C-alpha cells in the first residue's frame, strides 16, 4: 500500500454525540418564583476603593453588589453618598414624576394618541441617580429607557409629549419613533433604535473632550441584552486603549424583550466582570437602590475626571413591565418575577428611607403624587393642542425631505415635487 501524506490528530474513537446547549430561564408563565439563588449581600459591607485606585482593585466588586439602603431603610457603609434630605426629596420626586409620565403616556398609546411607548418602571433610580451624580453638561448617550435623565435635567415634559405624539410641535419634526428623543442643550444624544451603537459614540465623545482638554465627561447606557453587540466590545476596547473619560453602564434588567439575560451570557458571569477582561474599573450595583447607583456613578465620574479612565457599571435591576407597548410579557415570563423581586422598588425604597430619616411622610408622598399627576396631565393637554399622531397636525410636508443632507440635492427636490403631487390626489383637503 502506497504511503499517504502524514496526518496528525487523534484517531476517531467511539465519541459521544455533541449536544447544543440553549439557555432557558428559570421561570415561565404560571411558575412560582424562587430567588434564593441570587446572592444579594447585606448593604454596607463592601469597601469603597479610592477613585484613583488601580483598576484591578475594583474587580472583586464586579462579582459582588454595592448596596447602601437596607431593609431597615437606613443608608449604611462607605458607599453611602451622604446626600442631604433636599437632594433625596428631589430625586424621589423625579423618580415619581418619571413613573407618572410613563403611566400617562402608556395610556395615551392605548387610547390611540400615538403608535408606541416604552416605560422604565422599576429602573427609574438608574438614570435619575446618574443625572444627579454627573455635572449638568456631561454628555449622556442613552438607550431608549433613560427618559429619567431628561426629566431630571429639566427638559420640558410638553416637548417630550410633542415628540411622542409626532405632532406639529415635535422638536424632531415627526421623524422619529416615539421616545427617541434628542436634546443637545440638555447633554442628551439623539436616541437610536439600533442597539448599542451609542456605546462607541460615547467613547468617541469622551476622546474628543480629552483631545480638546475639556473637563466634561461622557456616559452611555445599554441593556444587558445589547451588551452582546459588537459595539459593546468596540466601546470597551477604545475606552481602555485611550483611557477615555467615560462611564459605560449596563442596565441589567434581566429581560431583552422575551430573551432572558442568559442569552447575553449572564449564566457564566456578571456583566460588570467584563471590565476585568479589558483592564478597566468595574462596579456592580443594586440598581433599585438610588443611593448605591448615585455613589457608583459619582465614583466613576470622579475617576474619569481625574484622568484615571473608564468604568463599566452594571446596574442590577428588573424590567417590571413589558419591553414596550408592543410587548406582552405574560406570554413568556412569570408574573411573580416582578412581584417577588428581592431588591424591591426604587421609589418605595427611597420613600421609606426619607420617612425613616424623619424627612418625609405618607401624606407628603400622596400629595406629591397628586401634584405630579396634575403636572403630567397639564403637559399632555398642552401638547395635544399641537395634535396627536395621525390627526393631521404635524410638521409641514416638505420637512420630510429636509435634513437628509445639509442642502437639498436635485434628486430629493424631484422626489419632494412628486410627494406634493401625490398629496393633491391622496389628500386634496390638505392644509399646511
Amino acid at each position, binding site marked *: 500500500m502506497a504511503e499517504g501524506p502524514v496526518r496528525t490528530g487523534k484517531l476517531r474513537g467511539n465519541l459521544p454525540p455533541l449536544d447544543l446547549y440553549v439557555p432557558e430561564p428559570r421561570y415561565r408563565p404560571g411558575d412560582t418564583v424562587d430567588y434564593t439563588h441570587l446572592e444579594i449581600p447585606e448593604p454596607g459591607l463592601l469597601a469603597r476603593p479610592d477613585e484613583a485606585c488601580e483598576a484591578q482593585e475594583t474587580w472583586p466588586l464586579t462579582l459582588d453588589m454595592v448596596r447602601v439602603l437596607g431593609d431597615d431603610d437606613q443608608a449604611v457603609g462607605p458607599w453611602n453618598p451622604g446626600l442631604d434630605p433636599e437632594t433625596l426629596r428631589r430625586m424621589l420626586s423625579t423618580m415619581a414624576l418619571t413613573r407618572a409620565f410613563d403611566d400617562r403616556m402608556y395610556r395615551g398609546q392605548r387610547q390611540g394618541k400615538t403608535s408606541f411607548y416604552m416605560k422604565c418602571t422599576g429602573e427609574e433610580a438608574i438614570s435619575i441617580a446618574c443625572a444627579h451624580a454627573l455635572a449638568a453638561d456631561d454628555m449622556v448617550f442613552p438607550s431608549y429607557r433613560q427618559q429619567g435623565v431628561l426629566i431630571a435635567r429639566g427638559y420640558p415634559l410638553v416637548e417630550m409629549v410633542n415628540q411622542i405624539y409626532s405632532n406639529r410641535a415635535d422638536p424632531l419634526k415627526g*421623524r422619529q419613533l416615539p421616545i427617541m428623543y434628542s436634546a443637545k442643550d440638555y447633554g442628551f444624544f439623539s436616541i437610536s433604535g439600533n442597539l448599542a451603537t451609542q456605546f462607541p*459614540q460615547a467613547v468617541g*465623545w469622551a476622546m*474628543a473632550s480629552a483631545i480638546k482638554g475639556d473637563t466634561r465627561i*461622557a456616559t452611555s447606557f445599554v441593556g444587558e441584552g445589547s451588551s452582546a453587540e459588537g*459595539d459593546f466590545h*468596540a466601546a470597551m476596547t*477604545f475606552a481602555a486603549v485611550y483611557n477615555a473619560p467615560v462611564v459605560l453602564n449596563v442596565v441589567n434588567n434581566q429581560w431583552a424583550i422575551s430573551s432572558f439575560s442568559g442569552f447575553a451570557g449572564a449564566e457564566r458571569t456578571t456583566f460588570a466582570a467584563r471590565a476585568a477582561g479589558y483592564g478597566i474599573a468595574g462596579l456592580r450595583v443594586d440598581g433599585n437602590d438610588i443611593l448605591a447607583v448615585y455613589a457608583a456613578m459619582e465614583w466613576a465620574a470622579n475617576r474619569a475626571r481625574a484622568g484615571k479612565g473608564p468604568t463599566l457599571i452594571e446596574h442590577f435591576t428588573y424590567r417590571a413591565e413589558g419591553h414596550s407597548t408592543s410587548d406582552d410579557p405574560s406570554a413568556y415570563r412569570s408574573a411573580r418575577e416582578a412581584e417577588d423581586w428581592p431588591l424591591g422598588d426604587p421609589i418605595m425604597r427611597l420613600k421609606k428611607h426619607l420617612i425613616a430619616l424623619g424627612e418625609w411622610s405618607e401624606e407628603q408622598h400622596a400629595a406629591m403624587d397628586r401634584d405630579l399627576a396634575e403636572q403630567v396631565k397639564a403637559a399632555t393637554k398642552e401638547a395635544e393642542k399641537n395634535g396627536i399622531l395621525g390627526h393631521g397636525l404635524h410638521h409641514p410636508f416638505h420637512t420630510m425631505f429636509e435634513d437628509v443632507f445639509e442642502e437639498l440635492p436635485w*434628486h430629493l427636490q424631484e422626489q419632494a415635487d412628486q410627494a406634493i403631487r401625490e398629496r393633491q390626489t391622496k389628500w386634496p383637503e390638505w392644509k399646511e
Partner: protein
Amino acid sequence: MIEENPVSLHDAPSRSMNMIEAINDALDIMMARDPDVVIMGEDVGYFGGVFRATAGLQKKFGKNRVFDTPINECGIIGAAVGMAAYGLRPVPEIQFADYIYPGLDQLVSEAARLRYRSAGEFVAPITVRSPFGGGIFGGQTHSQSPEALFTHVAGLKTVIPATPHDAKGLLIAAIEDNDPVIFFEPKRIYNGPFDGYYDRPSRPWKGLPGSQVPEGYYKIPLGKARVVREGAALTVVTYGTMVHVAEAVLAEKGVDAEIIDLRSLVPLDIDTVEKSVEKTGKCLVIHEATRTSGFGAELVTLVQERCFYHLEAPVERVTGFDTPYPHSLEWAYFPGPVRIGEAVDRLMKD
C-alpha cells in the same frame, strides 16, 4: 482636456504629485486650517498608513490629532460619530474598502441618519477615506469596489477622485462638507494612471496633466463632474480608475467619445451627463464594481429616463463580473480594453 476647476485656470504655483502625495497634502492643509480636524485609523499614526497617505502628519500635528486605532471598524466609525457630536471633524481611514463592513451599521444607521433623526441638532461631518478597487493582485479582500452600498444610503455622500489634482480638491471639499462623506481612493492609480493593459509597463503620474497639483488650499465642489475629453460620437460615464482605461481604449479605437469623470456619485452631476447624451445620442457606463445593482444600473436608468428620445442605441454598461475578485484571474475579472472595446463596437456599429 477641459478643466472646470477655476483654481487651475489661474496662476497658482503647482507641482506634479502622485495621488498619495496629493491626499497627504490635502490632509496637511486641513489639519493646519481647522483645529477640529482629527485623523484616526489603523496604522495611520507613527507609520503614516499602509499606503503612506498620512505620512508625517502625526509628527507635525501630534498624537492627539493623528492616531492609530484598534482593528475595529465599528469602533473607528462609532468613535468618529461621537467625536463629530462633540464638534470635531474626524477623517477616519479604513485601511481597505473591503474592511469597511464591520463599520456599516455606524455609517448607515448612525452617521447617515443623525442630521435627519435629530432634526439638525447633531450632525456627522465625517470623511471616511478608504482605498478601493482592484488591479494590484489584492485578492478578494483587498480589491472590492463597494460604492453602490453607500450610494444606496440616504444621507451619505460618495466621492471618488481620478487624478491627484482632483483628489486634493475633492478631499478638502469632503472634509469641509457638513455631511458624512465616503471618500474612495482608487488605489490602482495611486502611483500612476492605468490604461487597462496589465502587461504594459506602468506609468508614473509625474509630468502628466492630472498630476499638476496647485499649492495650498483649493476645493472642487462635490457634485460637479469633469469632462475629461469632449466628443460627439458617444458619451462615456465613469469614475475612478476606469476613467483612464476608458480614455486609452477610446483613443485606441479612434472614437470621438465624450468622457465624463463623475468625481462624486452622490451628489450626482446629472446635468453634465444629460447634456452630453443629448449631444451624442449614445451612452456607455463603465465601472469596476460588480454588475448587478451596481451604480451603473442607476446611471443607465437615469439616462433612459431623461434622454430616451435622444438615444440612438441601447445604453451599454461595462462592469466587473458578479463574482468575488479572483486573485489569479484578476485580469479576467477586470473590465479592461476587450470588454470595453466590445461595448464600444456594439454602440458604434450603426
